[in-house]
């Protein structure tokens, strides 16, 4: 019998703080190709080990190896590289635009580009993502115009959501990008509900829920998993574990669970853990989960393991809570460099073509930025009309809002 002693409060803390040398030796990274690919019909209890490893396809030499190397079309991969480059260049321009006062706030994807860019490629038109603020690659990969994204960030007269939302809170039903909730995790149960509605109506679309490691602590996450577990609708439950919830390391939300993917086990849901910096692994895992959903085999939990290489937002300075060199030391590398190396290894890409593609995409982004700025930015140019402020509160405008609109002269 263990000896009685007074209780202590256990407060998990990251191993490394600013001033220390980055150390990820406790992050167990399996070799690429090492993890099995179960048949999508496999019972969750027969694949529990999947939640404790990491599915990886690209090895250090840039080769696609193992059972998850499913032979993606090189053309699709080239497009994927362009999507990621576009997102990264777009982020850099918008970040600087924020520093220039053209918008009040921005959130970048640095290091996490593969997750949203690759995932979208597994979906079909009519499927619906319920994203967080770090999945703009879903829009880029779906072909949403950059200039509309910038108009939203600048909240100008071309903003599709009419100046009502914080910068980066895009919304496009047509492109399967629901909207973004500033109250974290609220869209997780909504995605499950959306998929239940699809099941009830008998349409063939699926939904994808998105959440960050920190927000899995919200009760929305747990309620959503109960419903996913009970009603088995066609939903993919994505968790992006980028190691940091602003300054709080992932161990705070994860607690005693070995991994975030393992949260699915308590609900009897199959759970994958995937290298989020490996475009091919993300794509293969997404396709596996989509296959399950389309065969009415139910939901899948996917934890994407990645690293938030930038600040949480433009209001954040990460050097206050983690070493500056930590991003460079992250063992899963940079998603763009890894896919680039693979394409070069395949013989369909080269250093020169990469440099040329970067220049082309930068020119495209700059042209879109000029177009957006010609309309206006946060403090200059054409803004959303005050008339729009009163629209869409209800499906039809009630008389008192018509009156208030008249009172401000519109």
């Amino acid at each position, binding site marked *: 019998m263990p000896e009685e002693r007074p209780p202590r409060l256990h407060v998990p803390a990251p191993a490394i703080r600013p001033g220390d040398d980055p150390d990820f030796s406790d992050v167990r990274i399996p070799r690429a190709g090492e993890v099995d690919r179960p048949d999508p019909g496999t019972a969750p209890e027969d694949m529990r080990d999947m939640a404790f490893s990491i599915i990886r396809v690209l090895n250090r030499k840039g080769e696609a190896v193992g059972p998850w190397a499913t032979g993606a079309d090189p053309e699709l991969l080239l497009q994927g590289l362009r999507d990621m480059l576009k997102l990264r260049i777009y982020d850099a321009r918008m970040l600087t635009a924020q520093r220039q006062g053209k918008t009040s706030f921005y959130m970048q994807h640095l290091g996490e580009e593969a997750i949203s860019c690759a995932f979208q490629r597994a979906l079909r038109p009519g499927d619906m993502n319920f994203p967080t603020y770090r999945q703009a690659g879903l829009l880029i990969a779906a072909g949403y115009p950059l200039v509309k994204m910038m108009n939203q960030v600048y909240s100008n007269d071309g903003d599709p959501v009419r100046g009502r939302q914080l910068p980066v809170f895009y919304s496009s039903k047509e492109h399967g990008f629901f909207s973004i909730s500033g109250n974290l995790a609220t869209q997780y*149960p909504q995605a*499950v*509900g959306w998929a239940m509605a699809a099941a009830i109506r008998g349409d063939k679309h699926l*939904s994808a829920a998105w959440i960050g490691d920190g927000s899995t602590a919200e009760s929305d996450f747990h*309620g959503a998993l109960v419903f996913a577990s009970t009603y088995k609708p066609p939903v993919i439950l994505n968790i992006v574990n980028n190691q940091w919830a602003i300054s709080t390391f992932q161990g705070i939300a994860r607690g005693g669970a070995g991994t975030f993917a393992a949260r699915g086990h308590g609900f009897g849901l199959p759970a994958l853990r995937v290298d989020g910096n490996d475009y091919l692994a993300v794509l293969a895992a997404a396709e596996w989960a989509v296959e399950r959903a389309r065969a009415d085999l139910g939901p899948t939990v996917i934890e994407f393991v990645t690293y938030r290489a930038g600040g949480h937002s*433009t209001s954040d300075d990460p050097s206050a809570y983690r070493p500056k060199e930590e991003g460079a030391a992250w063992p899963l590398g940079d998603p763009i460099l890894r896919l680039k190396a693979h394409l070069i290894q395949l013989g369909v890409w080269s250093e020169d073509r990469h440099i040329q593609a970067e220049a082309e995409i930068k020119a495209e982004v700059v042209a879109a930025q000029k177009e957006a700025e010609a309309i206006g930015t946060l403090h200059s140019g054409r803004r959303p009309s005050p008339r729009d402020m009163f629209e869409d509160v209800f499906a039809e405008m009630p008389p008192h809002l018509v009156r208030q609109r008249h009172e401000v002269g*519109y």
Partner: protein
Amino acid sequence: MATEILMPALSPTMEEGTLAKWLVKEGDTVSSGDVIAEIETDKATMEFEAVDEGIMGKIVVPEGTEGVKVNALIAILVEEGEDVPEAGAAAPAPAPAASEEKTAEAAPAKAASAPAAPKVDLSPDWPDGTAMKKMTVREALRSAMQEEMKADENVYLMGEEVAEYQGAYKISQGLLDEFGPKRVIDTPITEHGFTGIAVGAAFGGLKPIVEFMTFNFAMQAIDQIINSAAKTHYMSGGQMNSPIVFRGASGAAARVGAQHSQDYAAWYMQIPGLKVAMPYSAADAKGLLKTAIRDPNPVVFLENEIMYGHSFDVPDLDDFTIPFGKARVWREGTDVTIVSFGISMQFALEAAEKLAEEGISAEVIDLRTLRPMDTATIINSVMKTNRCVTVEEGWPQGSVGSYISSVLMQEAFDWLDAPVINVTGKDVPMPYAANLEKLALTSAEEVIEAVKKVTYR
């Protein structure tokens, strides 16, 4: 062309900062992305990168300057061989565009202090001569759901105990048998969870009816109701809406204590994007619930446990609805206007009856919906009676009555002969003991007392 470099904002709330250090000097060539300065606020230090390329023409704000306002001109970038323009003359901001021009619909002049009587909808709720039948509020709610579920296969009911058990208060009696477990769904016990599910299902094209055993439990789900259901249509630029009804008992029942007795009328009434109904009679319960289910917006439908068993005349029609935003005048009168809604209508009507015996003629208005609220009917009545008493079960501060008082102050001040009195529940959590509970709620006696005050009797 010269480019103005402005003091950047490190965060949305930053108003000014210290220009700590320039990392370039006048004459230096600057490329896009170069770090050109360091900016400090009380919270953080930031490296400031150049967006454009050029030559540092003039540093307007020297390093070490504190309190530099965001968007103040701090430097000017010029092109090769270009002169430095005067501060403020470089790169003029684009002229404000003409898109903000007024619409053809001219804005009317501000309302005069004494407006004409507002237009009131006096149409009957159902055709004169319609046959009536007795029905409890419970049966009325059930038949409203049954009719709408039959008419539209996208309508479904979910909540705790709504299927096998037929509802904690038996409102969903027979619905499982008729519509099956896909449309009458027993949920796990998580208001927060199943409300999120229902909101998502509404986004996905269904028309859910969410039953809360009591609205007291919906407190757990209020983030989903307000932040998601009520606001998403607006936030998505009109792309996504949630046609959904949240219904269940609100207010005190009997001996259920502080956590099961709260009236939520005033809470939900405050939210743009939500509609709020709180019927008193069975006919209104049926007609309003049918309207709520058909409405493309989220509707909060507040019922009352005690009222479930009360019987009223209900029109014997295949299909009838009651529009939102139309009050019902239960009793016409000339001396005072009593405004109420939901179960408190009992006290309003009982008080009016007793007051009539004493020769005081009270007009009694049932609001039926709190948002939209039919203030025209209230104002019109007060123009006739010049006095008003409001009656509700909820607490006094920020009550429905206090809103009505402010409307009357602004729209009917010149017609008031006495201050409006709000009869409300006592400002305490609901006690359990029967005598204390009774005292905490409103009563006909309190309404009579208030009427006598405003009529100076």
